[in-house]
């Protein structure tokens, strides 16, 4: 099921195929991994957006969009994210399988060629990216940065991570800084593009029913034209917190947010990563977790209270949305649940139920084309790449002792609160 076959193209460029006949679409993604660096992050992010806007063959956004629509609504997109102290730029294209075409086009061939065109043959004017193209994407990226502030759940967890990792590369936003986005020139973007082709580690992931060998050949020939010196990718792991950083921000909101960041001591490629995933899930990863059952349901303190584990960095975040006067109470309740785990207060039922829901998530993630792509992409920097079945076997081999052992390693690093003030209630008082 959803088996991954890896074929090397050249140094640090790998073509991954997952042959699947269950779906009606094919998806090809190309991810470039580069060190997350404050001097290049903004340029890389903006460059990735400019690339999927047009290409030499379709030198205009609307012309390219129409080409995609005529391929039965094929979609082309790019994005950037952090995976540990690494910036990952992903370019992907997807479209329906050849067998559903209303006339006899070979859609899969068009998809791989088009994706290569945008990555390797951008639309250039006098050897540089077109200034108008850059301006459009710059404006949109700045809009996106500004709009990230709109949803306070996302804003508060990002803020907590930036406080927690202020001395690590991970503290850098995935798009660098707004100032650097504003300052980036067409020359900077050209340099970033060249740098990516020469220095990034590339993972190409092909998910679909049609033969991937043609796509392999296309990528193989494009990469053979480039002389490459791939960068080394490293992620710094802070094993435990020395002291607790506490920060608060007041905002005109009706609900407050409480975010607690913990160091877990364990990060990729440590053998114990799966045990920490299980521990984190027992704590607050499901609707039968300790945080959900006790902090939400029994104490009725919040609508959401959950935990997540960033395995590349060995960080666990606990997030909740609470009434301002309940912040302290909720914090104590969360710490109480962690203490209970450290004392071994975990039932066999809790462990079994969490294992089952993790198994369910691993298996289900591979029931969509996008899911398979994300499932494998997220593991590309890990020590070992697991199939869903291998991941399930790994989880099932763990014991309560493993969970308790991992819980004991938790140290609280950061508490960030976004406190709602001047709500309607305040005015009435």
């Amino acid at each position, binding site marked *: 099921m959803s088996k991954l076959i890896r074929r090397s193209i050249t140094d640090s460029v790998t073509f991954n195929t997952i042959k699947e006949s269950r779906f009606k679409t094919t998806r090809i993604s190309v991810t470039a991994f580069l060190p997350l660096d404050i001097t290049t992050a903004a340029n890389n992010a903006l460059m990735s957006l400019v690339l999927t806007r047009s290409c030499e063959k379709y030198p205009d956004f609307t012309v390219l969009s129409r080409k995609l629509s005529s391929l039965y609504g094929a979609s082309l997109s790019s994005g950037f994210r952090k995976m540990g102290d690494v910036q990952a730029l992903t370019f992907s294209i997807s479209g329906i399988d050849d067998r559903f075409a209303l006339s006899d086009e070979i859609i899969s061939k068009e998809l791989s060629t088009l994706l290569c065109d945008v990555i390797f043959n951008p639309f250039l004017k006098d050897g540089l990216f077109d200034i108008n193209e850059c301006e459009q994407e710059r404006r949109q990226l700045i809009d996106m940065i500004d709009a990230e502030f709109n949803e306070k759940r996302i804003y508060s967890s990002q803020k907590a991570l930036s406080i927690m990792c202020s001395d690590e590369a991970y503290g850098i936003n995935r798009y660098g800084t707004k100032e650097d986005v504003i300052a980036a020139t067409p020359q900077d973007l050209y340099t970033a593009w060249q740098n990516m082709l020469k220095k990034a580690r590339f993972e190409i992931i092909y998910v679909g029913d049609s033969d991937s060998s043609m796509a392999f050949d296309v990528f193989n020939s494009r990469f053979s034209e480039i002389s490459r010196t791939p960068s080394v990718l490293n992620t710094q792991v802070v094993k435990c917190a020395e002291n607790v950083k506490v920060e608060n921000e007041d905002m005109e909101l009706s609900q407050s947010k409480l975010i607690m960041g913990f160091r877990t001591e364990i990060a990729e490629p440590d053998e114990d990563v799966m045990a920490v995933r299980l521990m984190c899930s027992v704590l607050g990863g499901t609707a039968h977790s300790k945080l959900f059952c006790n902090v939400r349901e029994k104490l009725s303190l919040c*609508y959401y209270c959950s935990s997540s584990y960033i395995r590349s960095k060995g960080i666990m975040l606990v997030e909740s949305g609470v009434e301002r006067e309940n912040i302290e109470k909720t914090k104590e309740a969360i710490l109480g649940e962690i203490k209970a785990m450290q004392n071994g207060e975990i039932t066999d039922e809790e462990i079994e139920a969490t294992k089952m829901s993790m198994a369910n998530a691993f298996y289900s993630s591979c029931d969509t084309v996008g899911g398979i792509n994300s499932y494998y992409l997220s593991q590309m920097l890990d020590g070992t790449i697991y199939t869903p079945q291998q991941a399930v076997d790994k989880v099932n081999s763990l014991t309560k002792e493993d969970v308790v052992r991992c819980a004991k390693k938790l140290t609280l690093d950061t508490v960030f609160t976004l406190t709602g003030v001047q709500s309607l209630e305040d005015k009435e008082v």
Partner: protein
Amino acid sequence: MHISEIKSELLNEKYYKVKHDSGLTIYVYPKEGYSSTYAIFGTKYGSINNAFRVDNKDVVRVPDGIAHYLEHKLFESEDGDAFSRYAKTGANANAYTSFDKTCYLFSCTDNFEDSLEILLDFVQSPYFTEETVAKEQGIIGQEIKMYDDSPSWRVMFNMLMNMYHAHPVRIDIAGTVESIAEITPEYLYTCYNTYYNLNNMVLCVCGNTTLDTVLSIADKMLKKNEYHKIENIFEDEDDSVVSPYVEQCLPVGLPLFNLGFKEKAGKKRPDVKTLACSEILLFLLASSTSTLYRKLMDENLINASFSYEYMEGEGFLATIFSGESHDPKKVATIIKDYIQQMKKTGISEEEFEIAKRATYGDCIAALNSTDHIANLMADFYFSDREIFEYIDAISDATLDDVTDRLNNMFDIEKSTLSVIKNAE
């Protein structure tokens, strides 16, 4: 029991539609090779159903937010909650309430039969006491407050409040902190007994399962429900909008907008043809391939968050354009001018063909996903449509049909703009 097999030659797929003796309609869409199965048990009952009449008796009015409150409370029973029962099967369970339906769902890769039993059991086993009802007010109160802080939620409801004079689609799905304080076990039982009748419900299953498996569990878990006629009562809704503009200040990095066009709606929901033509029209009008999108982008007025939606249900029909912009008023003016212009010049054959292909491709691609299929089957059942008929309607659509939609969907006089911005 009546079983019909519904086939698509084009997709080489089929599903079954069953009228079970209990009164429940059951859809089963088997997906070969999938490891997961997704099941939804839903009732045609949502936030807009705050006044109703059963078997021509007296009209009953209930507090706002009850459908959503019921959704929360049904998870609880005398001996523990449904989540803890699902914990033993490994299924991933959830529920949601929308304007016109409440759905309970799970997805699983193992123990499907056990999970389906749990689903059918807990939704059919209401248990409400003064104490458990009161307890939920804390959690739902926090949920309402979370949405009060959400600019994208507020911008939509402010728009709906300004578009509808009387129709309850203008009221927040969860109600308000005040309205939920009025909810009692009696209200919950009244609504439950009215709308959670199997004749008013649907079960949709898609994925790694068979018709026989689903039916054997259904036979075991479902008892015959007597049919009762349910009438949803809505006050008369004027064709006009309440006002053309509304704004609210919230802490945002960039203003958000919703521009809505109100269309005359009846009790009956649009058929597959109308729906297909509306989607094609919206694609050619406002997708990233369109001239309008390009113009708004070139004038730096929108970004990739720009989107559109055709929203429809019993008694409401609206087209909504939404996004982020430094100048929402200008965006609204350009969209309206563009629509007027298109009404004059008509739609080109090329634009139409591209839009039709893209809409068709999107629809096919969506059938990869078991959750999408199950949700769509539920929604389509409640609106009297079938999935494969909808796909056929897209490929059968003509330029004339779509032009017809253009003339009916957009009345500039019946549009309203909602904006969320930062306080000055």
